[in-house]
C-alpha cells in the first residue's frame, strides 16, 4: 500500500534545548533527559534530550490522522521531521512516497504546514500572504487570485484581507495560517495544534473546513492534546508520550481498549492495600491503581452504580471518601491508563 505518511524508527535527540521551531514551549519542556545511556557524543557535557524514541507511523491516503499527547510528548518534533524543518537523528520518513530527507523539494510540493505558533509574513497583508505563497508554489497569477479570494471568503477574512496581518488577533492569524497551508492544494496537510487558542465558534469552523478538505481525498495529520478534537475529527489516532507511540487505532478501538471503559477517580482520607484489594474485587471492577497516598483510579464496566458499594467498602475499613469523579469511556481515560498521567497534567 502507498502510505500518505510513513515513518520508520524515527529518533530525534536534541543536544541542547529544542528550538522554537519544534514547537516546544519553555526552555526544557520536552521528552526525557537521558539519564543513563548517552546515545551519542558520550562524554560531552551538553544535556541530551530524547524528543523521539523510535516512532513508526503509517497514515493511509485520505485519512484524518491524529497525534495525541501532552505538551512535550514529541508531536511537534514528529511534524517537524515530516515537514523538513527538523532533521531526524536516525530513521526515515516519507510523505506521499517521497523520502522527506532525500527528496526534500518533491516532498515539500506535496505538503501544507500549519505550525503551532503563527509564522506569518508580518510585512504583508492577508491577501498578499496567500498570493505570494501561491507564487512560491508556481501557481499562475489567475489561479492565485481566485484561490486567495475563495480561501479568504471561506475563512471569513474577506473584510480584513487587505490589512497587514501584524494587527490580527491570534484566532485570525491562525485562520490565515491554515488558509495559506491550503493555498497550493497540498496532498497532505499538517496541522500542529490547530485549535489551540481558538474560540469555540472558530474551532467549529476549522473542523468543518478540515473535514471538507479531507473529503476532497486529501490526507490530514493533526496534533492535539484535546481529546474532544481528536474524537470529533480523526479517523485514526496515535497516542504519543515521551517520544514513543503508546497506542494507536480508531478512536472507538482505543476507547474500548481501556479496561472497563469507565474511570472512577477516588480520593480518600487515606487508603490501604487491603482496601484497594477489596475495591478490586467489587463486581464490574477491572483494575484498581493507587495514585498517591490518598487517591486511587478504578477502571470499571459501570460508573455511578458502583458508588454505594465503594462507600460501604471504604466504611468497613474506617475510611471516608472525600471526592469522586466519574468519567465515561474516553480517550482521556485511555491516556491515563497508558501513562498514569492525565493529558492536562
Amino acid at each position, binding site marked *: 500500500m502507498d502510505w500518505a505518511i510513513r515513518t520508520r524508527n524515527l529518533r530525534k535527540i*536534541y543536544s541542547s534545548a*529544542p*528550538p*522554537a*521551531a*519544534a514547537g516546544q514551549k519553555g526552555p526544557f519542556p520536552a521528552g526525557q533527559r537521558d539519564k543513563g545511556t548517552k546515545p551519542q557524543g558520550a562524554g560531552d557535557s551538553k544535556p541530551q534530550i530524547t524528543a523521539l524514541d523510535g516512532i513508526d507511523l503509517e497514515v493511509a491516503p485520505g485519512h484524518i490522522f491524529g497525534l495525541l499527547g501532552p505538551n512535550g510528548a514529541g508531536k511537534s518534533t514528529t511534524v*517537524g521531521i515530516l*515537514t*523538513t*524543518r*527538523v*532533521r531526524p537523528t536516525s530513521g526515515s520518513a516519507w510523505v506521499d512516497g517521497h523520502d522527506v530527507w532525500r527528496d*526534500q*523539494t*518533491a516532498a*515539500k*510540493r506535496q*505538503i501544507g*504546514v500549519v*505550525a503551532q*505558533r*503563527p*509564522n*506569518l*509574513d*508580518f*510585512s*504583508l497583508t492577508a491577501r*498578499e*500572504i496567500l498570493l*505570494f*505563497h501561491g*507564487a*512560491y*508554489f*508556481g501557481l499562475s497569477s489567475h489561479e492565485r487570485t481566485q484561490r486567495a479570494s475563495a480561501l479568504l471568503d471561506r475563512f471569513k477574512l474577506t473584510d480584513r484581507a487587505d490589512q497587514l496581518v501584524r494587527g490580527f488577533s491570534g484566532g485570525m492569524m491562525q485562520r490565515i495560517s491554515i488558509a*495559506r497551508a491550503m493555498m497550493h492544494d497540498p496532498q497532505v496537510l499538517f496541522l500542529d495544534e490547530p485549535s489551540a487558542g481558538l474560540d469555540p465558534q472558530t474551532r467549529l469552523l476549522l473542523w468543518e473546513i478540515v473535514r471538507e478538505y479531507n473529503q476532497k481525498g486529501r490526507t490530514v495529520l493533526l496534533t492535539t492534546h484535546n481529546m474532544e478534537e481528536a474524537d470529533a475529527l480523526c479517523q485514526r489516532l496515535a497516542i504519543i508520550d515521551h517520544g514513543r507511540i503508546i497506542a494507536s487505532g480508531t478512536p472507538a478501538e482505543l476507547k474500548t481498549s481501556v479496561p472497563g471503559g469507565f474511570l472512577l477517580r477516588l480520593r480518600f482520607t487515606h487508603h490501604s492495600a487491603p482496601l484497594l484489594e477489596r475495591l478490586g474485587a467489587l463486581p464490574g471492577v477491572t483494575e484498581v491503581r493507587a495514585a498517591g497516598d490518598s487517591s486511587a483510579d478504578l477502571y470499571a464496566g459501570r460508573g455511578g452504580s458502583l458508588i454505594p458499594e465503594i462507600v460501604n467498602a471504604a466504611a468497613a475499613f474506617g475510611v471516608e471518601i472525600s471526592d469522586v469523579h466519574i468519567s465515561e469511556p474516553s480517550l482521556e481515560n485511555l491516556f491515563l491508563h497508558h501513562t498514569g498521567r492525565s493529558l492536562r497534567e
Partner: protein
Amino acid sequence: MNGKAFLAMLARDAHVARRNLVPLLFQTFLQPLLFVFIFGRVMVSSGYMPAAYKSLLLPGIMAISMVFTGVWAVAMPLIGEFQFTREIEDRLLAPMDISWVAVEKVVFGLIQAVVAGLVVIPLAWIILRPGLELHLSNPFVFSFITLLVASFSACGGLALGCSVDQQHIGLMFSMVLTPMIFFGCTYYPWSALSNFPIVQKVVLINPLAYASEGLRATLVPQFPHLSTLLILAALTGFDVLLLIVGLRQFQKKAVS
C-alpha cells in the same frame, strides 16, 4: 533551483521594500549625504582639508554606503525572520532547496548595495562640485569591482545575520561594522598607513579595505592605491568565503 519560486521571493522582497520606501531611502542616503556634506564640503571649504580630499573621500563613502546597506539589507530581515516569529518558515517550505532562500536574500541585498553605492556619485557631484575629479578610465573594471563589493556586503550580511541573535544586533554594529569602517581605508588611502606598519598589515584582513581601494583605483586613480589585481583577488576570495560561511550558518539556523 526553482526559478519561479526564486523570482517570487525576489518579488516579495521588492514589494516589501516598496511598502517601506521612505524609511528605506533615509536609511540608505542620509548617512552618505551627511558624510559628503561635512567632510567634503564643510571641512574643505573651511580650509581644514585640502580640496583634493573631496575626490579621495568619495570612493570611501561609496564603499561605506554599500557595505552598510548590503549588511543591513540581508542581516536585519534574517535576524528578525529567524527570531520568535519564524516569518521565514513559509519560504523555507517552498518547493526548492533552502539554500536558494539564502541566495535570494543575498541577491536582493546585492541589488540594494549597488544602488546605494552608485547613488553616492551623483549625490557627491551635486554637493562637492567644483573640484571633484573623477577619472572613470575603465568602466568594465569599475562595474566588476562594484559588483564584488556589493556581493561581499550581502554575503557578509548573510553570515552575520545567521550568526547573531536579536539581542546582539547593537554589538554586531559596534564590534564588527564600526572597526571595519574605520580600518577600511575609507577616509584615507591604504598608503597613508605607512607610518603605522603593523596597522597597515592588519587592515589587509578587512575586506572593506579592498573595497575602498578598489573603488579608489577605478574612480580616482590619481591617488595611490593597492594593485587592481590584488584587489580583485582579495574581494573574490572574501565573497566566496563569506557565501560559504553564510550558507552553512543559514542551514544550521533553518533546520533543527
